[in-house]
């Protein structure tokens, strides 16, 4: 849905008009009430006849409705599963070192061909703060912040300790984020 971006005057010195207080209070109340009525009408109209598309309100009616966050969104960190069926991670431990709440824990090992891989990769979802440092540190684009925000809560904390199998997501499903970090987030322009 299209959102209009409003220019905001950010000066700190107040004009005489503003210093007189009452008009500004009234203006504030007007804005609040305006939103109240827009939402009220939107709600009634939606249920009465109009489709969801036309309504002017921003609220999403979860769980009937849901959003797909933009690629810049930092959801649950996941491990990228390459097309060859192996994780891209080489167990370098940089994400482990970069992670502020220290929620990653890796045991490295080697494949027969001499490549390193994580024998175990544990990410403690109860501690993750979704900062994206792991993704930034990773030299292999092997861990990325996915758009997954739905499966973050559990009734049992132990279910939030993700093992490698819980974390692996095929590369295709992460194409958007991978493109985003390559071009925008950690692209050449930023460094």
């Amino acid at each position, binding site marked *: 849905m299209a959102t209009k971006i409003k220019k905001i005057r950010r000066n700190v010195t107040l004009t005489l008009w503003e210093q007189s207080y009452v008009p500004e209070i009234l203006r504030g109340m007007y804005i609040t009430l305006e939103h109240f009525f827009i939402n009220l009408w939107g709600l009634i109209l939606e249920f009465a006849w109009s489709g969801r598309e036309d309504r002017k309100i921003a609220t999403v009616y979860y769980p009937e409705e849901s959003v797909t966050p933009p690629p810049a969104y930092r959801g649950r960190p996941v491990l990228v599963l390459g097309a060859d069926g192996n994780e891209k991670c080489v167990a370098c431990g940089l994400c482990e070192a970069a992670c502020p709440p220290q929620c990653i824990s890796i045991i490295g*090992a080697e494949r027969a061909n001499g490549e390193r891989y994580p*024998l175990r990769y544990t990410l403690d979802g109860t501690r993750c703060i979704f900062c994206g440092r792991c993704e930034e540190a990773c030299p292999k684009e092997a861990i990325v912040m996915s758009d997954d925000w739905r499966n973050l809560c559990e009734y049992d904390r132990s279910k939030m300790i993700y093992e490698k199998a819980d974390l692996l997501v095929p590369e295709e499903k992460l194409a958007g984020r991978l493109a985003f970090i390559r071009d925008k987030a950690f692209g050449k322009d930023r460094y």
Partner: protein
Amino acid sequence: MSHHDAEQAVAKDVTIILDGKSVTVPAGTTILSTARANGVDIPTLCYLKKLNPIGSCRICSVEVEGLADPIMSCVTPVSEGMKVTTQSDKLTTYRQDMLRFILTNHPLDCPVCERSGECQLQNKTFEMKVLSAFATANPKKVPRTDWSLLRYDRNLCIFCERCVKVCWEVQGFGALAIDGNGYSAIIKPTTGDRLDCDFCGQCLSVCPVGAISSGVVFSARSWEVKKTQTVCPHCAVGCSFHVNTKKEELVRITSDDDIGVNNGNLCARGRFGFGFHQSEDRLTVPYLKSGDAHTTVSWEVAMSVLAEKLGEIKAKHGAESIAVIGGETLSNEDAYILQKVIRNGLGAETIDNVSNMRNPALCEGMFDTFGASAPIASFEQIEKAGSFVFFGCDAEKENPVIGNMIRPVMRDKDTPLYILNARNISFTPKARIRARFNYGAETALIAGVIRALTEGPGAVKADAESVKSANAISVESAARASGVSADEIKRIADGLKKAGSPLIFMGSEVCNHPKGVEIVKGLSNLAAILGGKTILYREYSNTQGVNDMGLAPGHLPGYAKAQGKAASGGDVFARILEGKVKAVVIAGADPASSNADTGRVAKALAAAQFVAVTTPFMTQTAKLANLVLPSATAVERDGTFTNNEGRVQLIRKALSPKGESRPDWVIFRDLGRMLGQEMHYGNAWDILFEIAGKVPGYQGLTHDALAKGGRLVSYPNRGGKTGGFEFDVKPLDAVGGDYPVTAIVGNSLFHLGVFSVHCSPLKDADASGWVEIGAEDAGALGLANGDTAQVQSRTGAIKLKVKITKRSPKGVVFVMKNDENAPGMSLAPADGGAVFVKVKKA
């Protein structure tokens, strides 16, 4: 100042201008050493203090007035009036350029490189702010080579040559060499396609980058590990190393240069023998035998069974019916508490340890003369010695790192080495004289050397007592008996005389020799005549300490005479078989595979009423025991070990004990409490405090003092003499009869005791269970390399793999001691006599 500069230190001093300041150093000192001695830092990459300067990286370059180009400070000696600049813009650029040359060919593999985080190339690149290489030369990628316990990645190699030099200068092996040059250069084993070396890992430890990596895949990253400095649990050198743990996992062993008596060097056992600590085979709960099988029980039950059984047997049969055997890998604290509980709590005095049981005569002989259970001298003597003598010791294999202490001294001071052995053992650098004598004629040979020293023109003045016994034999008859020619004996004597103050090392051949005491006395005389010293190799990490702590018959801690009543006659097993001993407590030992005549040991253990064992593994002994208590290994407990030179060193806890296992001192403290003794010890340091207060020689030890490199025990010298002994010069009678071959039973480089067989890298390096036999004997028996041979003695027979070597002369074979299925000690007679065997194809 490094070793190699030391010899030139006698020359006169030289004054140079270093960064505008005038400094004076002995002539021959390099610019780098001069700078470091004066607190000026020059960056280096290939330089290593323990090696001769290599001069391959040029990072250490400095400017010298009058020279157009910078020169390498690590290889250039100072000269009078030299004006040296160590920091300038020109130098910074020059050094950066040198580093860029190295980086040209270096791939950006840091994320997967084992050395990342402790890589000196990384560090230098960062320190010197080098942000880019010139260009990438993009040489051909060469696949990594597998060198068994090591791996070599040519792509990462910067050709600093440290590995080549350390393998030659320190390890004496010379297993590595640079092959080719430029882009095609590669480090190649000199042993053919496969690397077949000592696997000491010295090269691994000094490689500044990740070119040489461990064959045991490093599962962590260097910055994640916690390093706990402790002492090697294997042999008696007492090498210091760092146990690297990640969370509760031991991931590798490292050792920084300059730490410990070992100067950062380790042998294969030390560096790769750590798997046993966390092996799946470790016992984690106590076991009690009911019927024929062991069932698991709780510690409460196990401890009450232990206390009750011992109490019951004592009440019925008296304190003499209880015996204790201590292992030589117990810490001093374990041993002290064990003997205290047994002596004070049970009033028993039948206390022994494995090394003492193997050769009681030797140990007893030593108590009275040396005040310790062995002749002992500090490793500092190595620097001071006029010459080295290896007598009956396989210096490369037994206490390997002592060899690493000797080699740099030989390199720098050209100290002569003499090897006298019953087998053709080798050592690099080369010995002045290598003489092989007939097994059994050791004392005759010693007497011959003493005679040759003290008679004729240029005779050494010696005290009459030291020469007395030797006078019973002439040089010629010594030559006849020993098989070493009279001429050779004279040359040995001459050489020793010229060099003066020899340091004589005696190895396991002497320890296990029926005439061990006589040999030690003879060599002590020889040393005394020439103003030298003797060192007897000890086998395990705390062989010295358990003897010092009174885990020996008739001796309280510190070698005071014990008062209690001991069962008499024969060793513990003989007494069990006679029915005099009913219960035996075995702590941290496996006599059923390491004591002489293992068959008899097993019979005795089966005959005893009650056998309790503390052990980390289900050993042969444990299988025969009624009660098996899981004990913690050396990295799971605090305490102290006393090494070969009598140095008390700290062992530190790096991991929690596996499963429910407990340190031995905890087990015996609890036993003591159950027996009604006051045992206030809350931790190992409480015990150390008591030892430091009570045990002669150990007085005044504190944890903090020990943390700084340990401290030598001051042994009471009871006899007051170090030479002037009477000794028996008669050769051993050859009483082989049906058993014509003399077998020498000893340890291999990769295996020692019950621990090493649980370390897979060591098993890979040496599958264990072999017999070394000379080509002549093998030919006569129709044996080829790799065949299986049956080796039989009066006490037992085992099947072993044949290794044909030059090391074994005719009529002598070498049998490996530690193999679970074929224990070499099963061949040895219980009376400590020589081992005679017959060998046939199996």
